[in-house]
């Protein structure tokens, strides 16, 4: 079990790592907007799966806060792209993110109880960490529009908060 999870994590890291690197030829603002929005949607869906599956109050409360925060930020993102007259553009990084999330969702769907809770919360910590890395090294430096850049910077602070929150919940589950 542990080996299987570790292998899956490595595969995802490889997949995403490869694609973040691929996208290193500077995504455009419409692509960045799409990637950031997709990253939020993925976490909302993961949270909804957790709310439906988990019986642990702390885990459910964590998941509810993920839905709340990411819906709020994605709404701000939509308002901003509308104001800037930018149409988010699908791209390989968004696709890789969605694909990895799909795989993860299927994997989590096989788990119940404490196993689910642990796997979900650990993945939340890892996922937010990964998105933070992408924001810091790729998305924020590449963003051209100052308002988009500023929203991404707030997003980074939020995701860093979520990563720490997830890590805290993970230690509580041990």
């Amino acid at each position: 079990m542990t080996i299987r999870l570790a292998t899956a994590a490595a595969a995802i890291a490889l997949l995403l790592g490869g694609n973040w690197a691929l996208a290193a030829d500077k995504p455009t603002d419409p692509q960045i907007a799409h990637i950031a929005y997709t990253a939020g949607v993925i976490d909302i869906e993961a949270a909804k799966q957790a709310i439906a599956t988990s019986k642990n109050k702390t885990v459910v409360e964590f998941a509810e806060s993920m839905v709340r925060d990411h819906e709020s930020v994605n709404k701000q993102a939509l308002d901003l792209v509308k104001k800037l007259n930018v149409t988010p553009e699908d791209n390989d990084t968004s696709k890789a993110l969605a694909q990895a999330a799909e795989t993860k969702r299927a994997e989590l769907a096989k788990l119940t109880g404490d196993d689910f809770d642990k796997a979900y919360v650990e993945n939340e910590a890892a996922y937010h960490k990964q998105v933070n890395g992408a924001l810091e090294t790729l998305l924020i430096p590449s963003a051209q529009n100052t308002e988009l850049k500023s929203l991404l910077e707030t997003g980074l602070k939020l995701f860093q908060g979520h990563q720490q929150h997830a890590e805290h919940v993970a230690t509580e589950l041990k």
Partner: protein
Amino acid sequence: MSANPARRAFLALFLGAAAIAVPAQAETIQVTIDRLVYAPPEIQAKVGDEIEWINKDALVHTATVQGGAEVLLPPKKSGRLPLQEPGSFDYICRYHPNMKGHITVRP
């Protein structure tokens, strides 16, 4: 209608002394939350003061003292905490633990 100058002088003296003896007025100290940052992060206060956090974000935050009080701060709302005991307190947001603040409360 007292026209007794001696009495008026006495009253002025008495009230003057009383004013000095009265402790400084309790204050409301405001902390703004904007883009996941408490500003100012450090607060100096005294017992009896109140802190008011003003949340300008579209996110739910808290001001949570570890093992102590918690103030829930809904989006675009504010919340208050009366300071009842002296001490030095670190606080964080429960939902975003990278948000950090500190309160020093003098007796």
